[in-house]
Structures are given as structure tokens and as C-alpha cells.
């Protein structure tokens, strides 16, 4: 018991020390998270071996982008990530402004060390999208998660067998890696929304009603809109 507690404390300290672009200290930190999310998205969507992702992004309800996923472990493991969630308009193929989230998870097993990676999670169903509109989401029974297919010329065919709410892609130093979401808790960052949009807003305000705007997200939204065949209009 004592060893487990020490391990937990150690992990919390280690994760706290790990640099993360999403810890909101001022507006620049949130802008950095938006920029990092855009680059993470570009790395995945332009990768020659991710045909499935490119072709199925057009059918996704939303996209959760996690530019910095930190896993730390010493028998007990913990995962921490900050990221953005955007939803796609079915009619126009345009993407919403981003909502800010934080994700934490844990595991037990043979593990030691710290690893950094980046990930994107395609939200493929309305149920998956609605779950992220609530203030807290726990990945568990009732929500299905699949690891996204990797390789060229597999854009069709596999889609029917991937009837999951969420499809994940993860990469560590350019190499594809796995991302385990089971048990991960995803929490909305209301403080970040207030800072970024200049007023208190909720994920439904940002993602559904579209009542919050920040010019700084335009490059990220344009990249997503382009990738899904939508027409971007500068405003």
C-alpha cells in the first residue's frame, strides 16, 4: 500500500514536471496548444500511410486532437494529455471553433519511464460526439474505441468492420504507436474557454451553437476544412 502511494505521488510529480503546451497560464499558452494541435493534425493527415484516416475524416462527427500525451510509469502508470475537440458540420463540411479538454488515465503493469506522443481521435458516431459535449467523459463500457488502420490503399473495405465510436491514431517521434483510452477521464477546461474566448462558454456554445470565436483558430479550422473537402471562407 505504502509503495503504491509513493508510486502515485511520484507519477503525479513526474507528469507535473513534464512540459506540456496546454497548461493555461495565459492566452499565449492556449494559442500554443492550438498551434500544436494544427501541426499534429497535419502530421497525421499528410502521412503517406494513413489513407484510412484521410478518407474517413470526411465522415467523422468530430476530432479530438492531443498534441502532447505524456505517459509515466513505475509499476503504476499514468497518462496525461491536453487537447482540443472540434466538430464537423455535416452539410458544409466546415469545422467548429475548438473546445479545450484535459485527459487523465491510469494503468498497472510492468512499466517504467516517461514517454511523449501525439494523437488524434476520430469521433465517428453521434453518441461519441454527445459524450464529449458533457463536462466529464469516462471512456468505459458503452463507448467503443478502435485503433485506426495503418497502410496505403486501405481507404475502403475496412470501414464497415470499424463500427466504433472512437478511432485513435497515435505517433511517438514519427513512428506509429498505440493509445489506450480505456478508463481515461476527459474533463472540459472551462477556465481555458473563458480565457481564449474572452467570456465563459461551454462546449455546446462553442461546438454546436457557434457563439464563441477567436481569430487565432482560423488556421487550424482551415486545415481541417480543407482535409474534408469543405470550402473555407476567410472572414
Amino acid at each position, binding site marked *: 500500500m505504502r509503495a*503504491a502511494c509513493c*508510486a*502515485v505521488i511520484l*507519477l*503525479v510529480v513526474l507528469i507535473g514536471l513534464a512540459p506540456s503546451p496546454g497548461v*493555461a*497560464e*495565459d*492566452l*499565449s499558452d492556449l*494559442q*500554443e496548444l492550438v*498551434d500544436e494541435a494544427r*501541426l499534429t493534425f*497535419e*502530421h497525421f493527415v*499528410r*502521412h*503517406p500511410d494513413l489513407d484510412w484516416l484521410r478518407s474517413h475524416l470526411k465522415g467523422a462527427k468530430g476530432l479530438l486532437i492531443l498534441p502532447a500525451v505524456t*505517459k509515466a*510509469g513505475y509499476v*503504476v*502508470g*499514468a*497518462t*496525461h494529455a491536453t487537447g482540443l475537440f472540434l466538430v464537423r458540420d455535416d452539410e458544409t463540411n466546415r469545422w467548429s471553433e475548438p473546445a479545450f479538454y*484535459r485527459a*487523465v*488515465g*491510469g*494503468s*498497472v*503493469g*510492468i*512499466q517504467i519511464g516517461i514517454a511523449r506522443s501525439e494523437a488524434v481521435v476520430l469521433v465517428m458516431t453521434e453518441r461519441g460526439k454527445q459524450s464529449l459535449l458533457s463536462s*466529464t467523459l469516462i471512456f*468505459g463500457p458503452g463507448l467503443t474505441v478502435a485503433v485506426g488502420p495503418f497502410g*496505403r490503399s486501405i481507404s475502403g473495405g475496412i470501414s464497415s468492420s470499424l463500427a466504433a465510436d472512437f478511432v485513435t491514431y497515435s505517433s511517438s517521434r514519427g513512428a506509429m504507436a498505440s493509445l*489506450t483510452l*480505456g*478508463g481515461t*477521464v476527459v*474533463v472540459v477546461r*472551462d*477556465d481555458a474557454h*473563458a*480565457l*481564449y*474566448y*474572452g*467570456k465563459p462558454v461551454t462546449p455546446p456554445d462553442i461546438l454546436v451553437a457557434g457563439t464563441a470565436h*477567436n*481569430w*487565432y483558430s*482560423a*488556421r487550424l479550422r*482551415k486545415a481541417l476544412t480543407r482535409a474534408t473537402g469543405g470550402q473555407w471562407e*476567410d*472572414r
Partner: protein
Amino acid sequence: MGRPLTWPALLMSGFTMVTLLLLPSCAPLLPLQTEPVFAPSPAEALPESFTVVTWNVWHGLDTGEFWVTPAESPEENQARLQHQVAQLAAEWPDVIFLQEVNPLPERALAYVEGLKAKGLAYRQVHQVDACGIRRRGGPGLIPGLNNGLVILAKEELQLQKLDGLKLSGDLGQCESGSGYQLEELRYGLLAEITVQGTTMKYLVVSVHLHSGFEAGTPFLSQVGALYEQGRFARYPWLQWNIEQSRLRRIGELDVLMRDLYRRSREKQYAGIVIGGDFNFESDFLEYEEAVMLRLHDTYSSATRTGDFSTADPLRNARIDPRASLATPKELEREIAGESVEAQEVIRAAYRTEMARPRRIDYLFVNGFFPDHCLRQELFGTGTNAAGFPASDHFGILSRYTRDRSPCRQQARPADPASSVAPGAR
């Protein structure tokens, strides 16, 4: 990473959630404005005229993968410096942005001394971005390598360095007289000037963005057509390689502009002017990034004549013709499995690409002398007796005048770049 969700993990999730619930109470006060804020001054409050130059002055080195060697004799190097100083003195610009100044700090001081000898008083600030390994007060591991960015400004503009901001590269840190560098590092040199007779301050920035495997639209179109014909199977990987360079430059622009906009929120500035070697063309993704970050390419609004290819192998004898013969290893790797005939077509396309004039040096602004007439010309085109210009790049000279009649008299040429992202400003 083991089995998911057991009791220690639940304990940790609970702990983290309690922490998260407490965080909002520590959140800072809401900003009143999330847009970049500048207070551009009316033309009457600004000087009658103001001149800005950006110029990559060439470090004078042959660069290998791990080592560099001098590409010219000390006498040639000094003669080139004097040729540059003479051209700068002839225009007497208010602000000068230089890149590849080598070695620092000596060369920056040499510009100041050279201009002083012609009766022109300047201040300098600098930031090293290529240092190899250099111990303070001692020689560097790679002799002759300590080059980087410089800003020169007329004495009365009270030039002050704000930061040498690292834009990309994790393994290394370059200071003025010391540092270590285990990979390519890129910096932005940030400073401020105060316009004479006023309290108005401008942010002034010199940059030199990442240089990787460069290839523009003509080359990509040609080899892309080969891919469509089934003659270049690994084209997507070649494209991926090129895109990595482009994404790195986008990341560098993002870091720079976040920092500049943070400064503009914390302190009132009248505007920004950024000069440098950006290593991208106006039809690249990076250019669109700059425009969407609220930067204005002065080329698109200036009255000018002729083309502005700042890297021009056809006009600049200093551009090494050997560079167009060697194909980069990234390209050789991707074409290795193709037929000999396809390989030759791709290599020929690459050589043609390297011989193509390109506009890759820019003066970007936001809120900088918005109501003045702006005329622009290519700078540093003068040659020595042997026909060589003073650098392998031409620079850009922007001349702002309160009198708008020169802009009315000379119609502005059509600008293909101005059609990129209309309305973004």
C-alpha cells in the same frame, strides 16, 4: 503500458480530478481583447521618410553535413564586407535586417564601424543561430562558424534588443560568445525602436527560417505527373519529406508570432516589421500561414518595378552552380527503386528547379507606416569588378514617404501573391 483502469489508476484519476476542480479558481483575469492590438500612428506623427532593408549577406562558408570550411580568402571576405557597407551607406536606411552575418559579434561591429567611417551612426543588436560548439572566451570547435542575425538601426532610433527567441531545434543553445549546437537551430532576433521625436515604439525582427529539402510547385507538378503515370511509386514519401520542412517553418512562424502578439498585449506598440530570409515562396503553405497570422507582405502593396527574385541563379553569379548538380540524399533515396530513365527525368527536374529564380526574402509588417507611400526595390544588386554581387541573395529595400505622389505617379504592377487568402487582414 499494462492493464487499464485498476484501483491505483482510479485513485490517481480522482486525485487529478480534484486538482482540476481547484484550477479554475487560480485562472488569471479575462483579457479584454484577443485580437492583436496595435495603435498605428497617423502619417502626420511619423517622419517624412523611413527606409528599411532586409538582406541575407551570406556567411562565406562551404557547408557540409557535419563541418564547414571558408569559401573565400580573408581578403575576399573583407572586400565583400566593404562592398556591402558601401551599398548600405549609399541608401542610409533607418533599419537594416541582416542574416548569415559571420562571425558574430565581430562582423556586426564591423558594419557599425564601416558605416561610422562614412559618417553614419548606427547601433547593432545580434543573435547567433549557428555556433557549432564554442566555449566562452575560447575558439569554437568549428573554426569560423558563429553566424546569425543582426539588426542595425540609426543611433537616434534607440535600438534595444528584447530577445533572441528560439524558433525551432531542441538540441542546442547559441549565445553571442559561447554555445553548443547538435542540430539545426533557428532563432528570431527581437528588438524595439523608438521613432525620433515621439514615444512610439515598433517591434523590429530579423529572422532566417529553416532550410530543408526545398522544392516548389514546378518540380512537384512534374514529378507528381510521373507518379500518376506509375513511374514514381514513392512520390508520396518525397512529398512527405518536403512537407516536413514546410511544417517546421510553419511552427517557427507560429512561435514567433505568438511571442510578438504577447508583447503587443503587454506593452503598447505602434506596429511590427519583420525582415528576413523565410525560405518559402508566395504559393507555399507557409506564406498563407504568415498572412493568416495578420502579417502583410509589403511586396503586395508596394509600388515597384521588375521582378523581386531574391535568390536568382540567373542573375547572381555568387550562387554556387555546383548546388544545381548534386541531388539531395532524400531525393536519391526515394528514386532509388525507379527505372534509370525515370531517375534521370526526376534529377533533371530537380536541376531545373534549383536554377529557377525564387522570391524567398520578405519584409512583413503589421501596422507599420500604414498611410505612407511605399516604394520597393531589389537591393544589393551591384557587382564588383569580377561581376560578383556582395552576397548570394539580393535584399529588399522599402522606402516609406509621407508624400504619396510617387505612388500615384507609378502604377503598381499586378501581384499574384495578393490573391492568396484575400480578406484575411
